[in-house]
């Protein structure tokens, strides 16, 4: 019967037309063989039940008609057991899904839900969804993913459910990578996108207790851009860094998770100057960028993410930062962490020390972007400061545009005159967020008397609108020590 539809006709199985190196194969174990094992084991029980039933029937007065059929059942059961074990053996056979630049090729045993058409083009993918509640821990220990599945829906009909208990983690990673390479990564649903993120980010170094939420609002991290961000697999700095995935983007910058080739994860911050920037501003912005990056790479504090490298490639600026796994303070508060006095004191003390270190340098370093989003907390409650807003700042200076979390920006920084006191304001605002769980009102001195007199006093002093009336960093450390 001729039912090969026109759209898939172009990929005839015999002429794939790609070089062998480009093909990705995913091993897939169809079905769960153990299911049949348990059925086989349970059959003697059914045999017993059936014989009791037939015994009951045979002693009923009108049961004469069927009382001899018990022997038939007795004969059938061993046959059924044998059949189950055979099925189990058959199911263990490995199937292979082949991915090539032209499309996806599924093995024949999977054709049922694919409407008999096992060769599909990449453009035929309608969407990819993920079912199951995923946590970093479940991705790390791949085994308990029973019942989790990826569903691929096709535009021309048909879909395929890939149970994650049947594939290896590397197989799924390859599938996602192939989608980005040959199709469009935006076919992923939000849940699938989060799962993809876990796949790339989670490794042994992530503390297993941080299973809370990473399912942060993706929408705030992705917006339209002026340039096309790098794809996964791009090599930078003559093969030194390999982009693994994009973590955020918007306007003129993007953040990637990358690998320094021996397998060490790093964060790459990319910023792009608008194409029609005048050469003069371009040079000025570049000078500022290089000066600041050089300054930052000299920082050496265990609780500040290190700036490992900086470079310019194809007209885009890159800063390479240490990768700090964990969740940030905003996510932690949103997950419902307790905000007791001990926690506040510990956070305040640690942030104050980091600020003191930065401001104690000659010349003092102003962070400019101290917010709950930029402080990562680990298992022991230790904070690490990440993300120097520096690269954004240069683009900002070049274009006169400012984008940021306005609740943490003091008036003088808004006017373009950031000073060490600006970080103190951001510190006060961050403490207000930690104490109340809410962003403070922008451009105002924050107060929260219900939390405690001493901490309220500290927050009020730090968020004064006049930079001169705020305490300096060394006083801050002392005040934090005296907190209850």
């Amino acid at each position, binding site marked *: *019967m*001729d*039912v090969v*539809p026109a759209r898939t006709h172009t990929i005839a199985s015999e002429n794939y037309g790609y070089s062998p190196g480009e093909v990705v194969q995913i091993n897939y174990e169809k079905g769960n063989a153990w299911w049949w094992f348990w059925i086989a084991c349970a059959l003697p029980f059914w045999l017993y039940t059936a014989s009791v039933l037939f015994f009951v*029937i045979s002693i*009923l007065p*009108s*049961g004469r008609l069927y009382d001899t059929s018990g022997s038939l059942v007795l004969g059938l059961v061993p046959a059924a057991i044998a059949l189950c074990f055979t099925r189990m053996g058959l199911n263990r056979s490995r199937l292979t899904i082949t991915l090539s630049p032209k499309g996806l090729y599924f093995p024949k045993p999977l054709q*049922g*839900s694919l*409407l008999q*058409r096992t060769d599909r083009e990449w*453009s035929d*993918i*309608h969407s990819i969804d993920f*079912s199951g509640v995923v946590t970093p821990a479940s991705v790390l220990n791949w085994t308990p993913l029973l019942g989790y599945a990826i*569903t691929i829906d096709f535009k*021309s*009909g*048909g879909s395929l*459910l890939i149970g994650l208990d049947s594939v290896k983690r590397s197989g799924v990673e390859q599938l996602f990578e192939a989608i980005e390479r040959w*199709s*469009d990564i*935006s*076919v992923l*649903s*939000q*849940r*699938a*996108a989060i799962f993809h993120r876990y796949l790339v980010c989670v490794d042994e170094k992530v503390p297993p207790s941080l299973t809370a939420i990473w399912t942060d609002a*993706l*929408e*705030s991290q*992705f*917006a*339209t*851009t*002026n*340039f*096309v*961000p790098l794809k996964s697999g791009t090599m930078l700095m003559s093969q030194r860094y390999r982009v693994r*995935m*994009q973590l955020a983007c*918007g306007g003129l910058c993007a953040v990637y998770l990358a690998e320094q080739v021996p397998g060490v994860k790093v964060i790459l911050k990319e910023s792009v100057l608008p194409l*029609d920037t005048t050469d003069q501003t371009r040079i000025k912005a570049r000078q500022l960028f290089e000066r600041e990056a050089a300054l930052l790479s000299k920082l050496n504090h265990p609780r500040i993410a290190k700036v490992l490298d900086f470079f310019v490639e*194809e007209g885009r600026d890159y800063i390479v930062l240490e990768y700090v796994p964990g969740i940030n303070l905003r996510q932690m508060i949103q997950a419902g962490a307790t905000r007791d006095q001990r926690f506040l004191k510990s956070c305040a003390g640690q942030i104050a020390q980091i600020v003191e270190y930065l401001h104690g340098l000659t010349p003092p370093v102003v962070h400019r972007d101290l917010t709950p989003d930029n402080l990562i907390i680990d298992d022991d409650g230790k904070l690490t400061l990440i993300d120097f807003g520096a690269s954004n700042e240069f683009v900002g200076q070049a*274009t*006169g*545009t*400012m*984008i*940021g979390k*306005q609740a943490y920006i003091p*008036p003088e920084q*808004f*006017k*373009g005159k950031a000073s060490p006191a600006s970080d103190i304001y951001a510190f006060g605002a961050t403490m207000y967020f930690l104490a109340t769980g809410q*962003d403070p009102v*922008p*451009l105002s001195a924050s107060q929260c008397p219900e939390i405690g007199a001493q901490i309220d006093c500290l927050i009020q002093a730090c968020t004064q609108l006049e930079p001169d009336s705020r305490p300096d960093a060394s006083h801050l450390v002392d005040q934090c020590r005296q907190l209850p």
Partner: protein
Amino acid sequence: MTRPLLPISNAQAEHFVLHYNPNRSSFSDNSASLAEQNFPAFAGILFGSMALLGLAACLCLSINPIPYLAVVLALGLVLLSIDMTRPTNLELTPDGFRILWLHPLFFYTGPWLDYRAIAHVTICQPEGKPASERFFEVTIDTSTLPRHSDFDLMCIPITSSFKKNQITIRLLESGFFQAADRTTFLTTMRKRVAPECQSPDLVALDTFGDVPSYTALWLNDLQSRDKNETKCLPNKTLLANGGYEIIERLGSGGQSVVYSAMQKDAQSGQLTPCVLKEFVLPTHGGHEIKKRALGNIQREHALLQSFNHPNIVKSLDLFTEGSRAYLVMERIYGSSLRQLVDEGKIADEKTIVSLAVQMCALLEYLHGCEPPVVHRDFTPENLLLAQDNQVKLIDFNVAHRLESASTKTVAGKHAYISPEQFRGKPTVQSDIYSFGASLYFMLMKKDPEPISKSVPASSDALAQIVAACTQPSEALRYTSISQARNDLMALDLITLVI
């Protein structure tokens, strides 16, 4: 020769169409759709268990189970056959068309049919149902066709109950996977089916769909993936199947790159100059994020289309190509106020005041809309002076209607942002602040000090107006743009009011 395959629905097959409906963006009913897909298996389990339970019950009650089993089996077969007899796809070629049944366990290809067999094509809107339920109805007269016994058998569920020799195929309009499929279907029907068989509604229907829906935009864009990845478009690139040709890059802002281009009319081949604003859509956050990003651009497009004012740029079209979206706007020949001020072409107070009066009229129009529109980014960059001395407001990217919730982050050029906008609560007065700041820039040739009252060194009366516009406190600022306009008119400096 293209042979597109179109998914079909018929009247009884609503749930089948649902599975194919590309509008299904949330997958909360994922299990349900799978159940539909594995319908035979589910039915098998259901009827198998019914049969077993019944058998056990019969044995216990010592009734002869054979009639019961026969009934269950028959019911199961009927249900299975209903599922199996729904046609799924339609194949169109210039010579003829055929109907396909592509089911998980069963497939059947109908014979090639001549277009002359089509008795009637129409578009129906079921009463009391949303517009998305609109479907095309193709009525085929089988009396003229050569007999195919198996095909007749397959067609029983779609045969009209009153007229024996008529089969009716219904295609949900929203069930087309790609807008291109819908276009192909429509153009083929118009071209091949005799005019007297086409309903007037169908003839009047727009080939390309009324509004570019997200689905249409997005699904089309998957077909045409761009290969020139990270670079910006070189001159003479063709976009939208040759509908637009890039002439040159005009500039680039924080969110988008702007090109000048030529729009080519498909029918007359007439060329119209236009401007293309290119946005790169985010791909990594899942398709919901991409949809939202595209939604923002669609909102800008819709907002611009809803305006009818000589001082606001007109938006002509919106399309996507690859992972980029393009907003097509009218071409304005002129420079931005910032450029003109930098070049010293706007210098005397008279010109500035006459421009300011135009800006007032423009803001009055925006603020007079229902609900009022706050532009939020009213800066010298976003105001163009056209060759006929008309001020044109461009870039409504961050503009929003007052009712929508304010966002967490603040965007804009900070010298032009009012304090309340910085706090995330922009009002119509925020635009007045930006207007005042822009006036200061034109008078003083430099950006004003952010979040503070700006007083330019100009004639007293004018300086007072600018100061009253840029009061950081909303209570002290002009409450409406008309007040500023009246004060400007009273200056007696205006020689030329356009």
